[in-house]
């Protein structure tokens, strides 16, 4: 009976005005963030380990009338130059059978049997996380073999993974910063609202009200405000996710792993919304109780 009554003004103070907005923004960004992270994770685990940090260097064969040894010397020079680079972990010259396998789709099974001068291929494994090495590598190799070709497609792909991983981290970082800022703002909002109600609270106290009586009213108020905002944020977030979904459909399914069914995409947003509402309420309750304790 009494607990349903309100001795606090239910509108017009900072907390009740701001908390819904703050929680809404928090839930909106949180929803985007967890979904984004979930999507990035799925993409990453799809692309995953298949791609290792390798580059292929191709040493074109000299015209047939040159000596066989000259070809071998060119390849050796390139291997030596590569081995000298600090960013190179391992170097391996592909056997002719491997080259045949690579060329098979282009030239059919009989490529190896032909008298065609096949290029030598060198598999270069790079030191983990080494950056900007492709140019160094290119210049090192072309210095010794001017017409060597660096096939860096795999590296590109790997960098793509790096970039996605970066976006993932950035998303988490932004979400954390924004969430912290907004949680702090809720503390401020509650304090502001307590300050505004100082007079009312003091009258309640002097009339014999207990702290719990006052704090419960505040917490309920905040809970209702937070749920309002949280629902709004969830709806806005859902719209944004729908937009992302459209985007993702635009990208061929072979390129991006299927993200529609991943757990994070559908389960996490409501959890975020619940978390935000709870965070706001608990924050408000603690702030109120500790402030009340310092009053007469």
């Amino acid at each position, binding site marked *: 009976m009494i607990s349903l009554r309100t*001795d606090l003004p239910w509108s017009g103070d900072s907390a009740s005005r701001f908390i819904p907005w703050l929680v809404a923004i928090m839930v909106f960004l949180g929803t985007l963030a967890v979904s984004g992270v979930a999507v990035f994770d799925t993409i990453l685990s799809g692309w995953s380990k298949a791609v290792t940090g390798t580059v292929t260097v191709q040493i074109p064969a000299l015209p047939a009338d040159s000596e066989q040894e000259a070809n071998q010397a060119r390849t050796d020079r390139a291997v030596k130059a590569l081995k000298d680079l600090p960013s190179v972990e391992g170097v391996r010259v592909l056997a002719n059978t491997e080259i045949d396998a690579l060329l098979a789709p282009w030239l059919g099974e009989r490529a190896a049997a032909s008298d065609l001068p096949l290029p030598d291929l060198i598999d270069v494994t790079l030191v983990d996380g080494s950056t900007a090495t492709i140019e160094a590598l290119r210049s090192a190799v072309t210095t010794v073999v001017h017409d060597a070709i660096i096939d860096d497609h795999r590296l590109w792909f790997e960098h793509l993974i790096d970039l996605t991983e970066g976006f993932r981290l950035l998303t988490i970082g932004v979400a954390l910063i924004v969430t912290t800022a907004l949680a702090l703002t809720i503390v401020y909002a509650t304090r502001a609202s307590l300050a505004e109600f100082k007079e009312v609270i*003091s*009258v*309640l106290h002097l009339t*014999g009200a207990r702290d719990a009586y006052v704090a419960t009213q505040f917490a309920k108020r905040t809970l209702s405000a937070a749920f309002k905002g949280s629902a709004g944020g969830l709806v806005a977030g859902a719209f944004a996710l729908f937009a992302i979904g459209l985007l993702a459909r635009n990208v061929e399914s072979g390129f991006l792993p299927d993200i529609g069914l991943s757990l994070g995409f559908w389960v996490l947003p409501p959890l975020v919304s619940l978390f935000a509402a709870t965070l706001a309420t608990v924050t408000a309750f603690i702030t109120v109780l500790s402030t009340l304790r310092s009053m*007469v």
Partner: protein
Amino acid sequence: MQIFKPPETPDGTAAVELKNVSLRYDDGSDVLSALNLALPPGSFHFLTGPSGAGKTSLLKLLYLAQRPTMGSVHLFGTDVTAAARRSLPAIRRKLGVVFQDFRLLQHLSVFDNVALPLRVAAAPEPEIKSNVTELLSWVGLDNFMNAKPAVLSGGQKQRVAIARAVVNRPRLILADEPTGSVDDAIAMRLMQLFIELNKLGSNIIIATHNEQLVARFEYSRLALADSALTELPPLSYRSAAESDQAINEPQT
């Protein structure tokens, strides 16, 4: 001419007791210094003194809005200066306070303002309704039950404040200038309310600088001056026939 006499006050533990109480605000000199006082249960006193003497400050000590810088305050045998914060609400529910600046809650109706002490103490709603209604009609505000304080006149606000202070039949009523904003007729009617409650056993302390009012009642005075408290006998001067008349034919 009717002079109001205090009832016999029974002996027993003092209802209100100050032991060597001093009060100094942060930055100044003593507002109250070394006060000693013991009021028996059922007493009725005026608290007088010039503006700035410390009347409100003394009442604040009694309604636990302020702790004394030194000394101790005892209410109904409990040392409230030493009491745990947890136990204060129970003590406060035995007090009724009329603040000098009313302190009505602006967002609550007149009815809800007056009902507040009962609600805080979880009284049953029907009891609240009958008590509040009766009291509001006594102070002449039956028509303003649902009005917000903002639309009331100064005197009307003061009457709401008084109704709120006495609605739960407190054992100690502390009224700070309770008749400062009303005309003499209503003032006498409000005094009548305090007298009735006093007869039912409540201790009453009324801070006022209205000498004409004090003069009409044969109640002792607690006089504050120069930070010290003196208990004085009732004012001998008494004004006139109007007092009778005012009480017998109250105006709204």
